[in-house]
């Protein structure tokens, strides 16, 4: 509908624009709407014979330029009426999330129970309540006018970080895919940040340097991540190899000693008793072995372990029951060995038994790979003990 004959010239339009801009309307495209509306109205009045000055004076009087700001306020009020609840929700969840993080930090520093639970609650609060309501608020209110995609990609990256934390704590599968997603979204975020930094004219060098520094930090992180992972993987392998070697050596030695027993001291030592020692040792070693198998049912997983396995070992479910059984058995074994050495007067080994055959050496506060290796170490110590005892008895019978 553009039936008017008179058209305002650019100077007249600029005159109106300057006037309207004085009202300082910043909401969305409302100012553009109002300028065009006033121009149309002025044109219509000019169409019926008014001069620009007269027409504009009449329009100004009718509209009342003091009302322009009021229209903006009215618009915002109409829009935000229902939206206030969402914004309040956003504020509450944001503050609660941060408070939970801080409280969990205080708990952690004071070694109080529940720090991890509080942290997890904070993560859930931020990821599922704060971030979604923040995104809706930003989108609806058009809070960010330039480079909104940078903001979105940052929000997605933070969200993925938090979700991956939940995956880790809950021991859910596919965590490695989540980590991959984090890298991808971080990469996208940096890329978008880079392009938006190029676009902005002012402080371009500072902006680009900031992006560069961020890229270097991320790259270093990826680099050190793979390096430390590989290093500790190698360390664990060497340790495991050594333990296996010594375990084999000592079980071989025990076999030899058992053979000597058969040929040499049938008369001096009650055969049932030495068999009892061997059987008990075999039983406890098997129990330790089966525990380790449960810890890592798939041996490949141990060799190619990633950080997900290197997380604090959680005593729960069937593994916890197994651990309790193991503790009882190791204690019982230690007692029976001490009885045995007392019976045969070889108490010189008592100190060693008390020091080496200790359940707490497994240290369940460590991650599961360390627990695995500590169990192997315990197996080795038990093997050494067994051969030491058998050797001692043989020495006694010789002298």
């Amino acid at each position, binding site marked *: *509908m553009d039936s008017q004959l008179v058209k305002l010239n650019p100077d007249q339009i600029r005159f109106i624009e300057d006037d309207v801009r004085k009202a300082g309307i910043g909401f969305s495209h409302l100012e553009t709407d109002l300028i065009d509306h006033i121009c149309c109205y002025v044109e219509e009045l000019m169409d019926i014979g008014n001069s620009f000055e007269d027409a504009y004076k009449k329009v100004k009087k009718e509209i009342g330029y003091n009302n322009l700001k009021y229209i903006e306020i009215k618009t915002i009020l109409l829009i935000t009426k229902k939206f206030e609840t969402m914004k309040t929700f956003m504020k509450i969840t944001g503050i609660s999330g941060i408070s939970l993080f801080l409280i969990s930090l205080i708990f952690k520093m004071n070694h109080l129970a529940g720090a991890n639970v509080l942290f997890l609650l904070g993560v859930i609060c931020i990821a599922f309540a704060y971030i979604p309501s923040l995104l809706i608020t930003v989108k609806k209110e058009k809070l960010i006018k330039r480079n909104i995609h940078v903001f979105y990609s940052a929000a997605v990256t933070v969200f993925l970080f938090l979700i991956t934390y939940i995956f880790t704590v809950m021991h859910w599968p596919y965590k490695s895919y989540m980590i991959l997603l984090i890298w991808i979204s971080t990469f996208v975020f940096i890329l978008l940040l880079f392009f938006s930094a190029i676009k902005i004219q002012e402080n371009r060098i500072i902006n680009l340097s900031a992006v560069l520094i961020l890229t270097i930090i991320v790259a270093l992180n990826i680099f050190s991540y793979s390096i430390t992972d590989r290093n500790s993987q190698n360390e664990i392998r060497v340790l495991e190899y050594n333990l296996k070697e010594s375990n084999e050596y000592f079980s071989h030695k025990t076999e030899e000693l058992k053979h000597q027993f058969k040929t040499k001291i049938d008369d001096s030592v009650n055969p049932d008793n030495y068999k009892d020692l061997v059987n008990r040792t075999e039983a406890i070693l098997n129990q330790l072995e089966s525990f380790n198998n449960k810890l890592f049912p798939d041996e490949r997983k141990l060799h190619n372990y990633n950080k997900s396995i290197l997380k604090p070992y959680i005593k729960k479910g069937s593994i916890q029951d197994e651990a309790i059984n193991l503790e009882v058995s190791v204690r019982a074994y230690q007692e029976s060995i001490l009885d045995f050495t007392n019976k045969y007067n070889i108490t010189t080994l008592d100190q060693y038994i008390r020091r080496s055959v200790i359940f707490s050496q497994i240290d369940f506060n460590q991650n599961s790979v360390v627990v695995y290796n500590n169990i192997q170490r315990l197996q080795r110590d038990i093997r050494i003990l067994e051969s030491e005892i058998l050797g001692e008895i043989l020495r006694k019978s010789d002298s």
Partner: protein
Amino acid sequence: MIEKQLLKGSLKSIVLKLLKEHDRMYGYEITQKIEDLTNNKIKLTFGALYPILHKLEYDGDVITESEIVNNRTRVYYKLTTKGEKTAKLKISELKEFIETLTVIINADYGFAIG
């Protein structure tokens, strides 16, 4: 001239109806169209119109297109698919309201007044 207070609740539906009938419209065009259609009985001030248009845009019922016309930027408003549905609903609500009002106004209460 129709009283402002009477119109207040129906303005959104009227604007939606107009947008439904046209492919796209700009603010001034809407006010003019309403004046034309109603023989100047309904005068929609821009103080009432733009908050409604912005609210419709915010709710996703309309989208805007900006164009340079006669040396200035003009914002056109256009119904979205969601807006089409809202318009249908609002128009039928308004019709029902008018019919109900007619029933009340035309009713023969069965007793003489006065």
